[in-house]
């Protein structure tokens, strides 16, 4: 690993002022479970590392009926997984964490670091986008961005020089809605070869799908919002035939990579399969709530 200057501020204020004053390439380190790999591989060689792991004010998971769930950047995957309020109000996030990586990563890796890494194969960004979440960024001024708009390209996110992601905000779940996440793993905890997060709302009296947000992982350079698929589902009663149509559309719209885990063609087909599975499960959950 190349050398760098290291600072470990203890407060958000201190971190912001430091980030704003440093010249040259600066990277924020938290758990470092993805970033240190890139640094060891020589793909990343920042001049300055600002380690925020000691900013305890960012280590929280809170819930209120009005605001929904707020997760501080420092909350670890393990903390989200074990949080009673997450299990009760957003079980999909606990399920996601249960399938995310291995215990060593969950102990040290953080939600903030994960969503800022910008890996299109990662689960949290997709689930947060499906849940219409927002990210709170602090810099010279505060900025709230839609999780969906945060991802610009492979490992590139909408963080300006001097900015720090401090919080993930997940809105309350609307009535008659359901959400689910599924991914293709060889072993539990693997990065999804392809994954899908789906959110749907269903009219309880007519059974018609009123809203759908579906996000696929590892099929494009950013988390892929399957808008074409959503369009065919909204305004209709979802059945197997419609799900298949939605899946087909996604398999055509995605632009997947090819690697040792799967060819482009395979990933396209798995995008279809996993979109269907996640959406069917989300639908079932939405109906159960009625």
């Amino acid at each position, binding site marked *: 690993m190349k050398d760098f200057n290291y600072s470990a501020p203890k407060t958000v204020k201190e971190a912001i002022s430091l980030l704003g004053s440093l010249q040259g390439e600066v990277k924020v380190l938290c758990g470092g479970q993805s970033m240190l790999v890139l640094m060891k591989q020589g793909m990343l060689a920042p001049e300055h590392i600002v380690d925020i792991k000691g900013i305890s004010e960012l280590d929280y998971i809170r819930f209120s009926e009005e605001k929904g769930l707020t997760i501080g950047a420092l909350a670890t995957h393990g903390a989200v997984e074990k949080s009673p309020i997450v299990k009760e109000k957003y079980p999909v996030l606990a399920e996601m964490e249960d399938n995310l990586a*291995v215990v060593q990563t969950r102990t040290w890796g953080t939600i903030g670091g994960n969503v800022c890494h910008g890996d299109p194969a990662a689960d949290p960004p997709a689930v947060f986008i499906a849940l219409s979440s927002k990210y709170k960024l602090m810099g010279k001024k505060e900025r709230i961005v839609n999780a969906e708009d945060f991802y610009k390209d492979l490992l590139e996110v909408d963080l300006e020089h001097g900015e720090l992601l401090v919080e993930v905000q997940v809105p309350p779940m609307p009535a008659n809605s359901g959400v689910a996440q599924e991914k293709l793993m060889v072993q539990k905890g693997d990065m999804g070869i392809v994954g899908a997060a789906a959110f749907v709302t269903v009219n309880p009296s007519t059974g018609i799908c009123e809203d759908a947000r579906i996000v696929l992982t590892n099929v494009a350079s950013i988390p892929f919002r399957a808008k074409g698929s959503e369009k065919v589902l909204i305004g209709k009663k979802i059945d197997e035939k419609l799900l298949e149509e939605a899946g087909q559309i996604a398999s055509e719209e995605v632009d997947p990579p090819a690697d040792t885990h799967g060819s482009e063609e395979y990933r396209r087909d798995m995008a279809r399969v996993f979109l269907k599975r996640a959406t069917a499960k989300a639908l079932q959950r939405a109906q159960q709530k009625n």
Partner: protein
Amino acid sequence: MKKIKGYSITLTVNNENYDLTAEPNRTLLEVLRDDLHLTGTKESCGEGACGSCTVLVDDQPVRSCLTLAVAVEGRHITTIEGLSQGGALHPVQDAFVAHHAIQCGFCSPGMILTAYALLKENPSPTEEEIRRAISGNVCRCTGYAKIVEAIKSLADQGRQER
């Protein structure tokens, strides 16, 4: 501007304090092995895939190859050398010996520490929970069956703690 210098830190490893100087780009693994000569902690892949370098930070399993030494100042680090006391093996180590859960032995320090942390949090895990817990520790001899049996024996007896 490049002014890299070593940072004076105090690391608490196996309940002993070590004052040392570490460049910020050095991993906990490097410092443990090269500076403190605690070579029980092993390096294999060096990029977070194999779990050989697992140590406990505040009783939680962490990969020392993906943790900067400067980032764990003030925390309690436990390496495999810290489990046995007065020359007596810890029950988790005993169980690994008794169940022939060690082949080449390279994964054993990480595997044992992960098992220790699991049992501390959940004294009677199911086989599925055991397998999930050690899924971040790769055994190239593929001796998983014996390892699971060793951990299971402690779960069954509920005597993981001295």
